[in-house]
């Protein structure tokens, strides 16, 4: 009896094996190729490329400084003076000017909106930020009083880039829900008080 049903049993075993192999292969492939995984990698790669670009520029600055430091003393002092100015711009201890954008808000911003706006501006490459009467530096914390309307936010940086990034569809202004931008060839931002 077993010998007569042997062909059927063998065929069933083969069928089962092939079916299991097929299902397993499809699962592995779909796991690897989930759209989200590829998207995450693409965005992360883009951020890494941006980071590398910035790091290489910084290295170039430091290499130039190094070159100058190893030559004459007079040139070294000039180099230090320039570096001091650069650090003062970063720390907010000096008044700065440059191209950028102004954003005007007719309604007040709450604390989380101010945090998110500043975060977005920094991500886009803002080099100096000013909220009404206040220079924003690394250690600036936001309280609700700062967001009272009318509110003007001034930003120094590449004006076309920052303007487009902030006002694009899905950008920070759309998330906040209001605000108007104007690009400026010169914006002056006072030092931190």
């Amino acid at each position, binding site marked *: 009896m077993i010998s007569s049903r042997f062909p*059927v049993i063998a*065929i*069933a075993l*083969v*069928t089962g094996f*092939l079916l299991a*192999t*097929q299902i397993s292969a499809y699962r592995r492939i779909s796991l690897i*190729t989930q759209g*989200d995984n*590829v*998207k*995450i*990698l693409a965005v*992360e*790669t883009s951020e*890494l490329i941006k*980071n*590398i670009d*910035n*790091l290489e520029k*910084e*290295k170039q600055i*430091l290499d130039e400084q*190094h070159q100058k*430091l*190893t030559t004459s003393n007079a040139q*070294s*002092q000039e180099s*230090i003076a320039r*570096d*001091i*100015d650069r*650090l*003062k*711009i*970063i*720390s907010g*201890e000096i008044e*700065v000017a440059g*191209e950028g954008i102004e954003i005007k808000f007719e309604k007040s911003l709450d*604390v*989380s909106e101010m*945090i*998110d706006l500043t*975060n977005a501006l*920094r*991500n886009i*490459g803002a*080099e*100096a930020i000013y909220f009404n009467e206040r220079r924003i*530096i*690394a250690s*600036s*914390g*936001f*309280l609700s009083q700062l967001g009272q309307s009318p509110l003007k936010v001034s930003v*120094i*940086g590449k004006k076309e880039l920052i303007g487009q990034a902030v006002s694009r569809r899905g950008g920070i202004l759309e998330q906040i829900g209001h605000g108007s931008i104007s690009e400026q060839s010169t914006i*002056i931002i006072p030092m931190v008080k």
Partner: protein
Amino acid sequence: MKSTLSLLIIGLIIGLLITAQFKTPRQRILNPVEPFSSLSSTREDLIAKVTVLKDALKSRRSENDALQTQLKQNKKSAEGLVEQFNELKQKVGLTELVSRGVVVSLADSSLAGELSIDSIVHAADLRDIVNTLWNAGAQAISINDERMVANTSIDSIVNIVLVNNTRITSPFVVKAVGDPKILAESVESTNNLNDLYRRKKNFGVILNVEKAKEVTIPAFTGSFDINFAKVQL
């Protein structure tokens, strides 16, 4: 008859499966695995390159520091400038800072069940904690050893968090230098972080605050891009 029919059906199924297994490639086969492998490999190369560059920056800054120290010893007139330069380096986050402070630990919920949007830590939560600490007078802050500086952004892309364009993952350790009592009270206040505490209570998000006698905030190892802002004379 019945057995013949069974064999016929089984034979058809086997035929289909064998065909699927050894399917002849179409003219334009798109290997769905290849873009992922290629991107993944590129990402690894880029991460390695970032590490090399950061090491190079650290080394160059150290050499420049040594040269400036030498300058200070040789030239009296440069003394004031070098000291000013070193003070500014501290202010902008280019030097390590070790002092008393707090350590805030955050992590996604470890409760059983699927993670939801309320049970995981978001970039916005980290931004809120950093803001709370600055308002409480923190002198320096880091998240997973990434120093908060003037151009720091904290963002998320799908389920990963980027700080200073560097990927960090849960658990998140936020360190801050300052008065431990004041800093701890500010973070423990539900007024300051009400949504986070709501999610801690209802969804199991992990949030702990500890005062510390010594906290080390590492120096910033990234870059400051200043191309448009000029000193106003």
